[in-house]
């Protein structure tokens, strides 16, 4: 991943607008946050392959950055984004890393579902 270039990310957000896309949205402070006294408790939430369609997506801020995607009936929001990549599969990956390179937040968009494992499913 590279440090976010706001104009390039904005172009990518525009390309994913107005169509059905798969969303990976995540925030975490790590499963051991409480054990290491880094935080009062471990907190994490993620959605993998939420199917959304946004009419307007913007990246703002002066770093770390924020992204808001305006849906017909709501919003997708992420704060603390520092790095980005448009990967070989054409997926837009945005993430926020702390000073030690640990991921704290991620917002990713893809035209195809992100891989998932699970009992009873074929290998990814």
């Amino acid at each position, binding site marked *: 991943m590279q440090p976010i270039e706001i104009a390039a990310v904005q172009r990518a957000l525009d390309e994913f607008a107005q169509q059905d896309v798969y969303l990976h949205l995540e925030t975490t402070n790590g499963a051991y946050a409480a054990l290491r006294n880094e935080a009062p408790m471990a907190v994490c939430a993620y959605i993998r392959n939420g199917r959304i369609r946004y009419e307007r997506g913007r990246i703002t801020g002066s770093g770390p950055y924020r992204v808001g995607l305006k849906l017909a009936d709501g919003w997708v929001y992420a704060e603390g984004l520092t790095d980005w990549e448009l990967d070989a599969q054409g997926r837009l990956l945005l993430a926020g890393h702390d000073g030690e*390179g640990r*991921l704290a937040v991620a917002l990713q968009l893809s035209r195809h579902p992100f891989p998932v494992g699970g009992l009873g499913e074929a290998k990814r």
Partner: protein
Amino acid sequence: MNTKHVLLIFPHPDDETLGKAGAVALYTRQGVPVTLICATLGEMGRNMGRPLFANRETLPQIRERELREACRILGIGDLRLLHLRDKTLEFEDEDALADRIEAVIREVQPSVIMTYYPGHGVHPDHDALAAAVVRAVRRLPRDERPVIHASPVTRNAEAVLGPPDIVLDVRSVLDVKLAAMRAHRSQTEGMFKRLEEEAAKDPKVKEEFERNLSVERYWIYRVDE
């Protein structure tokens, strides 16, 4: 009892190494075959290398490569990936999860199983998989049950569980253990960099680090009770 086969059952790449690589290396040096069940690829790990070289989508492939390298270093000849998803084990069907583990136990017939201590894993995946191990072992006839060498992660383990049943001096394989830790580069590089920075200021930091790594503690988990 003579150890004839050891089965490691852990949810994430690096669980088999951190805190346990010494015991594993001692087994394989004695010629004991070791099988590792790794349930996920640690897809949701936070560490992405320092400097960053992984992202959320490349992390599983990177961690699988790192795991295979750590297995090579430790002499683990048999790796079974379950391809479940990081952080989701506690939401899967308990019996279905136990089925997958029971099948491997019946196949390799281990005398020792290493896993996390049920209820003391801190990470929900650790506890869910350890519970599945207990469930699988309980299905075996009493005299065929392997001994479970369990690793707690909780800080108060000794106060709650009493002293460890096994205290291993792993100094003779410390280099192997460190090499296996470094093989999990995406997950340990940041820690090693921090250690080097601190050691540059105070050489005692490194001594302390290596002293801590030189001893491993295991509690025998009794499934019959």
